[in-house]
């Protein structure tokens, strides 16, 4: 049987319901037979209520929202931001639709961006460099059927355009002479490169 000196130490915690179940039961049994401890418990309760009325309670309205906002404001890794955006997209459109749209977008972008470069890489090889004058002729002029004497005077650096049904597409032309004439004759399906002989 516990003495009052022992029980009195537990009364404050008993009043706050902070004791273990067996201790709560022991204190309760003791209080049923001990008036002095009961009076002491009543005093504790009175003092506790008085203290609670004196101490102001913190304002908790909006506390959870404020915490969430501050968490969101913390810097986050890019991967987490993308994942959160992706989850948000999934919430709006549905997960399957979002994944499908993303995959299609990636596929289309990949095709558009990389295929031309890959084809160009596959079909293009560097030719040996020449110290001669370089003439960049992207395409030839459509239907430029002219006499060579006149075209020989043309500046060889001129960019021209060739029709799709022309016979040749010249991507590079280097010659040792400063002027070169290039033209296409659609009627005969022929492309001509004229190299004026140097004196």
């Amino acid at each position: 049987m516990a003495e009052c000196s022992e029980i009195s130490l537990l009364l404050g915690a008993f009043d706050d319901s902070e004791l273990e179940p067996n201790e709560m039961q022991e204190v309760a049994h003791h209080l049923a037979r001990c008036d002095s401890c009961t009076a002491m418990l009543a005093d504790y309760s009175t003092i506790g209520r008085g203290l609670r009325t004196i101490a102001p309670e913190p304002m908790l309205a909006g506390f959870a929202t404020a915490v969430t906002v501050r968490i969101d404001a913390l810097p986050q890794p890019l991967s987490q931001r993308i994942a959160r955006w992706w989850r948000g997209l999934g919430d709006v459109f549905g997960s399957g639709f979002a994944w499908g749209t993303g995959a299609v977008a990636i596929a289309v972008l990949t095709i558009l961006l990389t295929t031309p470069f890959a084809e160009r890489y596959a079909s293009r090889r560097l030719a040996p460099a020449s110290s001669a004058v370089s003439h960049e002729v992207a395409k030839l002029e459509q239907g430029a059927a002219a006499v060579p004497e006149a075209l020989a005077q043309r500046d060889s650096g001129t960019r021209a355009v060739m029709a799709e049904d022309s016979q040749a597409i010249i991507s590079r032309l280097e010659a040792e002479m400063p002027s070169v004439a290039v033209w296409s004759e659609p009627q005969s399906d022929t492309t001509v490169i004229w190299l004026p002989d140097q004196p």
Partner: protein
Amino acid sequence: MTARLGSFLIYASILALAPIGHALAGPAPRQVSIHVDSVLAADTHEGVDARLAPLGRKLQGLFAYTTYSLVSHQDGITECGKMIAFMLPGGKILHIQPRAVDGDMIAMEIVLFDGTRPMMTTDLKLKDNGTLIVGGPRYEQGMLIISIGASTGTHVAPPREKIEIPAEATTP
């Protein structure tokens, strides 16, 4: 659900990357037939060499010379990536290297040498069975006109008599 979406994503990526792999792998080497005619063009009023038909009519439509004489005709077969050389009159040498066949276009590099000196280098795409004419170098009493034809074999050029280059003309 996630597994199916992942599978779809992988499948879409493979579809997207397939053209790249195909382009990088490149087509198998294809044979390309090259035909080179060397023609002397001059103003000596001798008309068109009968052996030039139908190239003669084409040349008459392009140039205003009064004489077109076939000096040499050479044929060669090569494949993409392999260079073929032709000895031309006047000590000229023609290097042709087909690079790829893209549809009905044949990508090739052509280098014309005067002896060992490169006169002209060009990268071009020539239509299958199309003709490229390179002219201008002075030769004998006129100009040398080189007709270059290329085909992948689907268009067969009519057989022609092969004319060798005169020995004195091949000396640089």
